[in-house]
């Protein structure tokens, strides 16, 4: 390993994604430019029983071409298939298949909410259950599970399966981990990967998020948690989405040696966790810390990617945080968002936003910064500061 942490800088050299707007990066971009919105009627299940009537589904997606070992498809749920496809496309985008990356120095870090525990399969296993018997009669429960649940169930549903399968399919033998901090998980995965590279644990990391919110289980549990039934349609524009984005992060000299194209540089990362009613304070703190760690001031921020788009306490908190950081509304730099076009892709949302925004950093000045905010359902916040690759 060459260089001390302070000398090791982290650049983005590859982007792959599967989103409701398109099953790859170029289709997603074309769809965005055409002004499309992917939020609409849910086709995969009957939503009439739920308060939420819309979702943002990924369409025309085929995972098979992205699986080096097709047999592993049976061990994957939808979020994992999105992640494997996005990872494979990110490597191809970075030209990392031709001018190789040492697989022992390549890590994988994925944010995800976890699986839906294949609720249908579980329900089938206990379907003749007398009311509550599977809870109170353990021998009965054991007989049902042992005889009716496919023995591979665990290998599909363990929370870390998403990063495990990405590593298997792309042959990554470096560090591997999964972040499960709901909506913030993907942004934290990028932030933690940034530290892996700075600290010398890896020279390159596929980092991102993968999630699937368009499931009856998620529609049901989010409604139970009150996300769809605020006063007077407070949350009416909240739509669940699905998808994945994986970014290839590389140590800058490593990227240079192999002649890689650089989209931008991760300058810093900060995260915090405060009680939900202190969300504005938490976000202001992470954004300030990110700027400080990047060696920048508020005046260097040229754009902000907002985490929260739907009218809600989350949006209010984000507005307050930005006003504290930049002054009254007029002083807030250009801000943008993607969720109104593709729903909330949960843990995938942060990486999708970074992956899309770095496609057009050329308008940013050499010292300029783009801040990417992430707000968690339970009060976690994260901010990534991204800039153009600055001169050494």
């Amino acid at each position, binding site marked *: 390993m060459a260089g001390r942490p302070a000398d090791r800088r982290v650049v983005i050299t590859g982007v792959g994604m599967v989103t409701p707007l398109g099953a790859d990066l170029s289709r997603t971009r074309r769809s965005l430019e055409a002004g499309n919105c992917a939020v609409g009627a849910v086709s995969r299940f009957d939503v009439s029983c739920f308060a939420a009537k819309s979702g943002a589904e990924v369409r025309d997606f085929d995972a098979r071409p992205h699986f080096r070992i*097709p*047999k592993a*498809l*049976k*061990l994957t749920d939808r979020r994992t298939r999105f992640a494997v496809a996005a990872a494979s496309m990110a490597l191809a985008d970075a030209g990392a298949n031709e001018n190789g990356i040492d697989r022992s120095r390549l890590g994988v870090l994925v944010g995800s909410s976890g699986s839906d525990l294949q609720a249908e399969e579980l329900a089938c296993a206990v379907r003749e259950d007398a009311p509550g018997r599977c809870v109170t009669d353990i021998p009965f429960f054991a007989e049902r599970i042992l*005889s009716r649940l*496919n*023995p*591979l169930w665990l*290998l599909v549903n363990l929370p870390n399966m998403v990063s495990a399968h990405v590593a298997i399919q792309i042959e990554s033998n470096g560090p591997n981990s999964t972040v499960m901090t709901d909506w913030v998980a993907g942004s934290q995965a990028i932030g933690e990967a940034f530290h892996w590279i700075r600290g010398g644990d890896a020279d390159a990391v596929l980092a991102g998020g993968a999630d699937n919110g368009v499931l009856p289980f998620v529609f049901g549990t989010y409604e139970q948690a009150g996300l769809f039934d605020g006063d007077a349609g407070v949350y009416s524009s909240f739509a669940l989405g699905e998808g994945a984005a994986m970014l290839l992060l590389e140590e800058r000299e490593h990227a240079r040696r192999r002649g890689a194209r650089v989209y931008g540089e991760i300058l810093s990362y900060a995260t915090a966790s405060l009680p939900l009613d202190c969300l504005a304070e938490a976000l202001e703190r992470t954004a300030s810390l990110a700027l400080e760690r990047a060696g920048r001031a508020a005046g260097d921020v040229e754009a902000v990617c907002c985490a929260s788009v739907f009218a809600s306490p989350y949006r209010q908190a984000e507005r307050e945080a930005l006003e504290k950081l930049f002054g009254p509304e007029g002083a807030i730099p250009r801000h943008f968002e993607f969720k109104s076009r593709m729903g909330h892709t949960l843990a995938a949302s942060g990486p999708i936003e970074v992956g899309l925004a770095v496609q057009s950093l050329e308008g940013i000045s050499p010292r300029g910064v783009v801040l990417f905010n992430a707000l968690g359902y339970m009060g976690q916040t994260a901010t990534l500061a991204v800039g153009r690759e600055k001169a050494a």
Partner: protein
Amino acid sequence: MSPSPEEIQARVTKTVAEALEKDVADVRPSSSLVDDLGAESIDFLDILFRIESDFDIKIQGDEIWKGELDLANADPAAFESGLATLRERMPDFPWDRFQEGIQKKDLRRLITVQTIVDFLTRTLAKEGERTA
């Protein structure tokens, strides 16, 4: 009534093809699950579960894989004579892939689609007799 040998063959072929993501045409009776179809240890669990569900039977432990001769538990003499019997029973199997002889650790590679079919034919016939 027990399914016919042809039906067992067809259902096993379909199950193995689905479990291992293969075309049905690539799954032949003499195909080794490990060497020809790429099965790993977890796939044996999966195939076992699918066969139990499809044929509505309960299969104990590894009985489906050990075969009628149970070579894994055979002494050296019985192991050699058992292998000779297998060679006669499995003329289509590419025995030349074991240039250095066959050890007990290689037994899993001898499990073919026909191994499963034979096991089911025996088991379902016994069940048929018992319930007749």
